[in-house]
């Protein structure tokens, strides 16, 4: 094996035909929202650039990101990308195991110091010195820090790595934290979602490999081409939202007519993801299309932003999960109304009882 093969050489070695390779390039360009001329650019880059290794680590997670990834709607994309990345380290799909597998990490550092991409699925727990996630006898957070020290850039797969997700939900006993809380000195691309959409994942990784740079990111560090708009902005039920036509209950007339799911808790208006455009399972469907509101799975802290079934959600200021802005605010405003009424009565009594010794007279004596 030559020391610095190109991606194209690797793919050919894995049995990908040139025709498939070119198809893959145009699919990817289209998926990234780039013009047709970019298909050629991607092909050229993959043919000429030495392969960038990808090390795929797993912290506290459920592997749904990997599951999503390997089920890319376009099998070709999945195959091609898998052939590109499985070469290095991914403990779910690699052939090696045990010491052999861990050795690969050190070899990658030796050979490609500062050049490989670190793809992180899941996140590190920090409590008890990281003992809640042990790999090869060491806390995962140490492995993560060690690999991050030598990588070029990090991809934070899924809501776990991007935001924390379920293991970081209150009360977060293991103190799980997203990658950007631990690694402060490397560029991080957040690809949130629980899991992220397969096409989004393959698109992001291909972009980084082909162009050798980070995709354009939004303020939160997410690739702008997939996370630039809310589901609500591109939802096909949006006309019903604007008209004021809502599903009130999941079995009502509105539900049958496909009205907007806002009142039964759809978080589309506050969720940045590509579900309403790219959709799931190769464009088959997505939650709103199947009649259920979005849970906001790609958003920071979405587990603690319940209920999933109401537009007004818990504020998280008290321990009580039922305390929403409406209950707290309603209580504050209600207290003001009651207080004002009581004060008015008391003022009336005070005024009546003070009639004889007028306050103004008392005052002018003073």
């Amino acid at each position: 094996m030559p020391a610095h093969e190109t991606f194209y050489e690797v793919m050919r070695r894995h049995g990908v035909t040139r025709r498939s390779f070119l198809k893959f390039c145009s699919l990817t360009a289209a998926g990234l929202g780039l013009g047709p001329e970019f298909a050629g650019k991607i092909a050229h880059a993959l043919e000429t650039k030495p392969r960038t290794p990808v090390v795929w680590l797993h912290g506290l997670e459920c592997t749904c990101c990997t599951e999503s990834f390997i089920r890319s709607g376009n099998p070709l994309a999945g195959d091609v990308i898998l052939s590109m990345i499985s070469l290095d380290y991914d403990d779910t799909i690699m052939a090696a195991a045990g010491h052999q597998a861990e050795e690969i990490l050190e070899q990658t550092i030796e050979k490609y110091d500062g050049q490989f991409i670190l793809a992180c699925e899941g996140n590190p727990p920090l409590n008890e010195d990281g003992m809640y996630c042990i790999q090869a006898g060491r806390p995962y957070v140490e492995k993560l820090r060690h690999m991050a020290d030598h990588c070029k850039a990090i991809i934070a797969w899924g809501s776990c790595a991007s935001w924390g997700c379920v293991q970081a939900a209150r009360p977060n006993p293991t103190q799980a934290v997203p990658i950007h809380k631990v690694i402060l000195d490397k560029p991080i691309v957040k690809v949130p979602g629980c899991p992220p959409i397969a096409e989004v994942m393959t698109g992001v990784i291909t972009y980084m490999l082909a162009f050798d740079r980070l995709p354009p990111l939004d303020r939160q560090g997410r690739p702008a081409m997939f996370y630039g708009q809310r589901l609500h902005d591109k939802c096909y039920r949006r006309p019903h939202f604007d008209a004021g036509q809502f599903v009130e209950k999941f079995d009502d007339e509105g539900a049958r007519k496909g009205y907007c799911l806002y009142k039964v808790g759809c978080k589309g208006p506050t969720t940045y993801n590509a579900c309403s455009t790219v959709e799931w399972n190769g464009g088959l469907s997505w939650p709103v299309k199947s009649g259920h509101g979005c849970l906001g799975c790609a958003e920071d802290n979405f587990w603690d932003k319940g209920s999933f079934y109401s537009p007004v959600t818990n504020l998280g200021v008290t321990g009580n999960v039922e305390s929403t802005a409406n209950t707290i605010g309603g209580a504050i405003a209600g207290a003001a109304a009651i207080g004002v009424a009581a004060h008015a009565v008391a003022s009336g009594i005070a005024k009546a009882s003070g009639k004889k010794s007028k306050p103004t007279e008392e005052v002018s004596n003073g």
Partner: protein
Amino acid sequence: MATSRVATGNDGYTGNVYVFEVPVRVWHWIHALAITALAITGYLIANPLTSVSGEASDSFLMGNIRLIHFSAAMVFAVGLFVRFYWAIVGNRYAKGLLIVPVWRGQYWSRLWHEVLMYSFLTRKVAKYRGHNPLAQLAMWLFNVVLALFMVCTGFALYSQGTGAGSWADRWFGWVFVIEPSSQAVRMWHLLGMWLMVFFIIIHIYMVIRAEFMSRQNGTSVMIDGIRRFKDDGPRDPQ
């Protein structure tokens, strides 16, 4: 200065005094109307009305509610900044909203006096040409601090519709750096509405109460700008 005021007692605190200039009064009523529209439409965004039937293309109920919210929001935000400008160029009573004289010991003793007075712990009532110290603090908290909070969170939410790179995003997108979850920003914005309602209930009560219980006029000072004192007694009761 302070001693001479106590000695002569009622300097400038008798008869009629012109305090709130036209811009302050006009702003007050525009501001009150805008907040009322914002609170009602905002409530309806958080808790939408019962579904309308028929074709989606035949109605635009939620769209109109949001349109009114955003239009009132522009009035509210621009009004706020015009009012701040007037605090700089206007008379001393125009500055009260923005500048609470917390560095003056007298401010705190008068504030304490108002607390006692409203708690029925003293019967002595003081006179003020501008706002009383308690009202002034509340106006600053709710109509400067909270109002700016509503503008920042509101326009940040607005920027989600106008999109990345839009003016709203460039000016207010930083809100999502502090709180990345836009659902959380929405909920804080909603809580802000309830706090505004809290202020409005108490404010209107206090104004009406002042009509009957204080030594000066209430509502009319915000209509013709003239403070009318009901007696010639000294400003601070001893």
